[in-house]
C-alpha cells in the first residue's frame, strides 16, 4: 500500500499550513480514515512514525486517527445501516444502496502553537 506516499503528502500540507498561520509548532492534527478507504490505520501510523524522524519540525507532533465506519442508505426503503460494499439492506434485502460515509481520507483539523504578540 502507499501509506508512505500519503503521509509524505500530509507532512507537506502540515508545514504549508504552519507557514500560512505563522505558527511556531504543529501540536497535533486529526486525520479521518474511512473503513472502506483501503488505508490500513496501523500501516498509516507506522508510516507516520518513520516520516516524523525525517521532519525535525514534526518530531513532537501528535497524530490523532479518527476511524470512520461505513454507513449506507437503502435506495429502496431508505433504511440506514452499517456494512460493506456487499451488504444487503437488513430491512428489505435490496443490494441497491448509497454510501453515506466510510471512504474518507481527510486531514480534518490541525492545532498549532502560536506566539501571542
Amino acid at each position, binding site marked *: 500500500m502507499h501509506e508512505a506516499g500519503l503521509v509524505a503528502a500530509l507532512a507537506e500540507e502540515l508545514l504549508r499550513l504552519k507557514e500560512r498561520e505563522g505558527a511556531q509548532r504543529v501540536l497535533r492534527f486529526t486525520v479521518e480514515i474511512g473503513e472502506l478507504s483501503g488505508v490500513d490505520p496501523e500501516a498509516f501510523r507506522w508510516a507516520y512514525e518513520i516520516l516524523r524522524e525525517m521532519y525535525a519540525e514534526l518530531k513532537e507532533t501528535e497524530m490523532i486517527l479518527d476511524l470512520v465506519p461505513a454507513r449506507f442508505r437503502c435506495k429502496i426503503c431508505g433504511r440506514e445501516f452499517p456494512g460493506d460494499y456487499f451488504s444487503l439492506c437488513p430491512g428489505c434485502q435490496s443490494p441497491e444502496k448509497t454510501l453515506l460515509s466510510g471512504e474518507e*481520507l481527510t486531514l480534518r483539523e490541525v492545532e498549532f502553537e*502560536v506566539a501571542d504578540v
Partner: protein
Amino acid sequence: MCESCGCGERTLRVTVSRGLLSENERLARENRAWFKRLGVRVVNLVGSPGAGKTSLIEATVRRLPECRVGVIEGDPETRRDAERLSRLGIPVAAVTTGGVCHLDARMVHRAFHELAASPPELLFIENVGNLLCPADFDLGEDLTVVVLSVTEGEDKPEKYPQAFRRASAVVLTKVDLLPHVDFDLARVAELIARINPEARLFPLSVRTGEGLEPWIEFLRA
C-alpha cells in the same frame, strides 16, 4: 492553552477538511483538461501483475487500425512492456516508477509531454501491476478499466473492492482458460455489480479473440 501561565503562547485550532489526495486530484484535473483540449480519450488500465493488460492493448491496437493509439506504460523497474508495445509501431512513453506501486497524475503529466506533439486519439495508460494502490490515484482519465483474469481467482472483487469502485468497465480476460480454473463468471459479475452497478463487463480472450468485438465497440463509442 497557555493563557493562564502567561508564557505568551496560545493554541490555534484550524479546520482543514482537505483530502490527503487532493494535490493528486488537482493535477488530475489539469491532465483531464489537457487531454480534452487535444481531443485525446484516455483509458487507465488497472490490474494485477500478469493479468493481461499489455496483451489487451496489443489486441486492441490491432483491431483499431483506423485509430491513432498511444500508450503511457507504467512499469516499476523495466522497460520491457514499453518495448513490446513499440513494436506495434505506436508511440509509447515509458514511466519507470522506481518501485512505486502506482502511477500518479504527476507522472502521467510528465510522460504525456512525450506524446503531446502529435497527440493520439486514444491513449492507454497501463498502470503498475497492482489492484490495490492505483485505485486511489486519479490520473485524469476518461475511463478506468480493471483487467481481471480468470486465473486470478474469483475472490478479487471481495478482496480489492476499491479497485472496482470507480471502474467504468471490467475486462474479464483469459476466458479461454475457464475450463481449467475455478472461476464462476456469474458469481464474479454479481460481486462486481454489488460494488459498482454501473460497471460494464467484458469477458474476453486475447488468445482466441472471443469477446473482443464488444470491447472494441465500447472504446469506439
